[in-house]
């Protein structure tokens, strides 16, 4: 290729970019991006868009955010819920507009969001980061009312504190039952970290009690590491029942805290029911969720496959191999902010690569981790083979202690980046 040819191609690209960018310039002096949801995904995305010079409005009805990561330590009794809570003051003082209301509906054709007080906002691009909702129609007997008796504690806050109080009030010798759903759900290793920490609580505070974990699947994240630790630490306090051993919960009876499986029933003193989940309600209302209840996206841009000019990040989206985690949501948010800024300027985003790391505590001083690297493939994110990995099996205790410390440091760093 001659130099002239190349210059012509580059010139052609630049011209295309100008044409794509033009409608925004003429229609509106400054493009406007709305972000719905102020969690690890949405708050990060709003921040990075703002820093990229984009006019951004964050819609979040709660004045404080309660973090799910580390909330299992609240249930364990060694951490206060206040340590999980973060305000939006830092985002506000940075100059980000935060509307403390619930997004009531989205009109994708008119690019308009209606708030619960009836006011409307228009956008050039919308970013949905609504997290999850429990599906109160999926497990017979489990609805919002029974969640007050058998907490899910799968959205941090009052539910987390409720489960902790129930464990604290339980007599020594009481049976704790935990029900874990099939994939996909928020935080794949989360139920097993929780099971570990509840078993640790029982072992140290209520040694005559026991936890039975009923799982609707046979395989899970960091399984070998968890099961190695359980055999060593909690042989008398944690019993794991996988799908193959009849672990799938088919019904719950809240009045007497009974959990029914295909082959047995368990009447618990404390029951933690983690039900099937779906993308947060606004994603459903916006038409960005498909029949699975989750939001299909183009992994190159996070743009919805169902609605143009809408992007979905975090737990609500179908990310393929990339798990529903705070780390993942934060990483996607930064990339999505950059991509949306590029699209608004008429540029073509480059193919992304994403990383996820996830720590779990098996005991307060015993951490394990998994890391993965992902790229777009088959319309979702796929694992890059040979990248990432998990903590070693049969490692000495100081490795576990260090990973617990890394886990703590990670929480400090990510919450400082998102809310600090």
């Amino acid at each position, binding site marked *: 290729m001659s130099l002239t040819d190349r210059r012509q191609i580059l010139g052609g690209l630049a011209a295309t970019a100008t044409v794509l960018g033009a409608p925004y310039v003429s229609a509106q002096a400054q493009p406007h991006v709305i972000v719905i949801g102020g969690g690890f995904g949405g708050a990060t995305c709003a921040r990075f868009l703002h820093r990229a010079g984009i006019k951004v409005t964050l819609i979040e009805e709660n004045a404080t955010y309660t973090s799910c990561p580390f909330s299992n330590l609240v249930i364990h009794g060694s951490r206060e819920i206040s340590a999980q809570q973060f305000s939006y003051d830092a985002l506000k003082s940075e100059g980000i507009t935060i509307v403390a209301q619930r997004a009531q509906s989205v009109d994708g054709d008119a690019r308009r969001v209606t708030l619960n007080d009836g006011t409307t906002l228009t956008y050039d691009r919308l970013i949905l980061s609504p997290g999850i909702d429990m599906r109160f129609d999926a497990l017979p007997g489990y609805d919002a009312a029974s969640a007050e008796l058998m907490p899910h504690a799968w959205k941090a806050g009052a539910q987390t504190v409720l489960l902790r109080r129930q464990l604290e009030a339980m007599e020594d010798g009481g049976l704790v039952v935990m029900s874990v759903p099939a994939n996909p759900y928020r935080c794949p290793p989360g139920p097993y970290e929780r099971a570990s920490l509840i078993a640790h609580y029982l072992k140290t505070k209520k040694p005559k009690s026991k936890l039975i974990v009923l799982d609707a699947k*046979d395989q899970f994240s960091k399984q070998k590491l968890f099961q190695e630790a359980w055999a060593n630490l909690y042989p008398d306090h944690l019993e794991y029942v996988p*799908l*193959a*051993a*009849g672990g799938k919960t088919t019904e719950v009876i809240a009045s007497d805290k009974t959990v029914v499986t*295909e*082959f047995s029933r368990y009447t618990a003193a404390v029951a933690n029911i983690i039900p099937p989940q779906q993308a947060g309600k606004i994603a459903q209302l916006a038409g960005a969720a498909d029949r699975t209840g989750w939001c299909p996206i183009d992994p190159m841009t996070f743009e919805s496959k169902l609605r143009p000019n809408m992007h979905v990040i975090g737990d609500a989206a179908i990310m393929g191999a990339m798990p529903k985690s705070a780390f993942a949501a934060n990483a996607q948010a930064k990339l999505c902010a950059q991509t949306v800024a590029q699209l608004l300027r008429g540029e073509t985003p480059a193919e992304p690569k994403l990383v996820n790391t996830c720590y779990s505590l098996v005991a307060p001083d015993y951490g394990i981790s998994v890391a993965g690297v992902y790229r777009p493939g088959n319309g979702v994110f796929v694992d890059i083979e040979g990248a990432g990995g998990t903590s070693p099996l049969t490692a000495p205790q100081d490795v576990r202690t260090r990973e617990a410390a890394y886990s703590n440091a990670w929480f400090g760093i990510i919450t400082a980046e998102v809310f600090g």
Partner: protein
Amino acid sequence: MARALINVPAKAKRGDIIEIKTLMSHPMETGFRPTQEGKIIPRDIINRFVCTYDGVAVFSVDLFPAMSANPFISFTLRATNSGVITFSWTDDKGETQVQTASIEVE
């Protein structure tokens, strides 16, 4: 074979339709999977399941390699009289595991 999980109601009224559930832990090796060295893992599946009620075969299944591991088989029967319900699983090696449950019909 491992011991199967069985769920049969202990009691039923005559003429009731009752639900039976069984779960047998079994790898259901298809015979199509190679090892890392490229050797084919020999087929090893449960190929036959039979349920008898009071000595009469009331339900049977022929299973093939497409069945997933740990086959879960659920079906319904009409409760006719008190007696023993027998379940048997036969694998490719010719081994048969038999388990029973009793039902009281009023």
